[in-house]
């Protein structure tokens, strides 16, 4: 049984259809990349999965998460297993601005203060922070974008759900920091970790580096869903071909410059 099963998801605003029947499945411990330009419907699909669709929009179809139907159910009213962990583009907004990050990381932990603190420091250390004590005492605004994104990842990894949703988590980061976050995601999701990943982006190269499957959205529809290597070898849709060509053009400069005499 798939972990996430989206079937015939339609979202309409008062004047027009925004999603035209999206079908999307994520099997346990699989990493699925969702690719699309702005306006393709990827943000709405994510919002439906997370239970964050604006009330003004009308959604029909089905979103089943860990066996429970969750379409239109806000996260607060879902069973714990159906509240996916989230990492977003805006890492600053994803954390309470006025509380030290250590206190926020301790929220899902029961037990004594000392126990929670030990767990928090341990988690921070495992995510590559060299000085977890200092990080735990810092406010989100006192950290760099890359550090904040790793803190968000730590919080997302503490959720009981076995799905992690990453919504453009690297778009606001520079390439070096982006590579670090991608490699952390690769370590913490996928086979053997007990956690599946739904990774939303507009950058096909990042998907290629991270995901097993690729879903391409265009104009509110899924136009392609296949293993990543198959898509790269033989893209089935015009839109996918465009994305791949563009990525190759930019890369071509890199190789051409590097190999020039």
């Amino acid at each position: 049984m798939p972990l996430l099963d989206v079937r015939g998801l339609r979202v309409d605003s008062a004047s027009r259809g925004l999603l035209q029947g999206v079908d999307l499945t994520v099997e346990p411990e699989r990493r699925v990349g969702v690719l699309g330009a702005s306006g393709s419907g990827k943000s709405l699909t994510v919002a439906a999965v997370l239970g964050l669709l604006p009330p003004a929009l009308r959604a029909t179809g089905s979103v089943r998460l860990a066996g429970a139907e969750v379409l239109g159910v806000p996260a607060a009213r879902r069973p714990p297993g159906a509240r996916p962990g989230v990492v977003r583009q805006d890492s600053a907004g994803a954390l309470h601005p006025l509380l030290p990050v250590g206190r926020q990381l301790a929220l899902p932990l029961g037990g004594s203060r000392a126990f929670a603190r030990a767990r928090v420091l341990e988690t921070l250390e495992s995510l590559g922070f060299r000085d977890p004590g200092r990080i735990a005492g810092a406010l989100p605004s006192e950290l760099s974008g890359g550090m904040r994104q790793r803190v968000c990842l730590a919080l997302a990894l503490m959720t009981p759900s076995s799905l992690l949703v990453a919504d453009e988590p690297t778009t606001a980061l520079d390439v070096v920091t982006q590579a670090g976050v991608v490699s952390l995601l690769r370590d913490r999701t996928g086979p053997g970790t007990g956690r599946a990943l739904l990774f939303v982006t507009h950058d096909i190269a990042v998907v290629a580096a991270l995901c097993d499957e690729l879903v391409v959205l265009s104009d509110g529809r899924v136009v392609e869903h296949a293993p990543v290597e198959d898509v790269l070898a033989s893209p089935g849709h015009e839109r996918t071909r465009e994305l791949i060509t563009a990525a190759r053009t930019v890369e071509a400069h890199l190789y051409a410059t590097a190999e020039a005499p």
Partner: protein
Amino acid sequence: MTLLRCEGLSLRLLRDVDLAVSDGERLGVVGESGAGKTTLLRALLALEQPDAGTVTCRGRQVRPGSPRRLGWFRRLVQYVPQDPASTLDPRRSVRELVALPVQRLGTPDEGRRMRGLVDEALDAVDLPGSLRDARAPQLSGGQAQRVALARALVLRPALLLADEPVSGLDLPLRAQVLASLRAAFERQGTSLLLVSHDLAAVAALCHRTVVLADGRAVEDVPTRQLLRAPQHPSSRALVTAVPTLP
């Protein structure tokens, strides 16, 4: 001949940075966020007085000051900002936007042939005539990008400073903009100083690249040498981090 040079520049986290751009040269400055790229641009644009060191343009020292005192410098050195679309005043038409530097920085002679200059600049970036009386919100991302470029080029500056001009764009658009930038520079012989965290963009445009790490210029080599054999650890991290398709 050296067009723009900074020597021993220190400002906030920048420490003792030297760099120079000659006529016709295209220079890249790369570094992770927090390396000091933005501060460097502010100092080079004479928007902020460095704590130590000097900025000179064609041998003449540049200090922050009124538009009147710095007019000569602003005519020589123009700027393409990050996310150029947002730097277009939504209440003014494309022609008015491009004419603004001519009104404020141009000579009386240029003022007289303002319309011609504006149209030439918009021709150079291939902006269709039908859009020239439009306002910024009616333009697409790529068109707005071209208007900002035309505004920077209208007085035919010798050097353009560009700040991550493509990083906010979708991949297909990014390839397109890089190509048109390259064409514009080759046609007009304008020099470029491009600041970016993205080596792919720098590789597409720049002859030479300076790597900025923790406020210092740690490497200053031809771009192809940097891509082939990066020396400094920061340079190596930048080169290996560029995501590529298998």
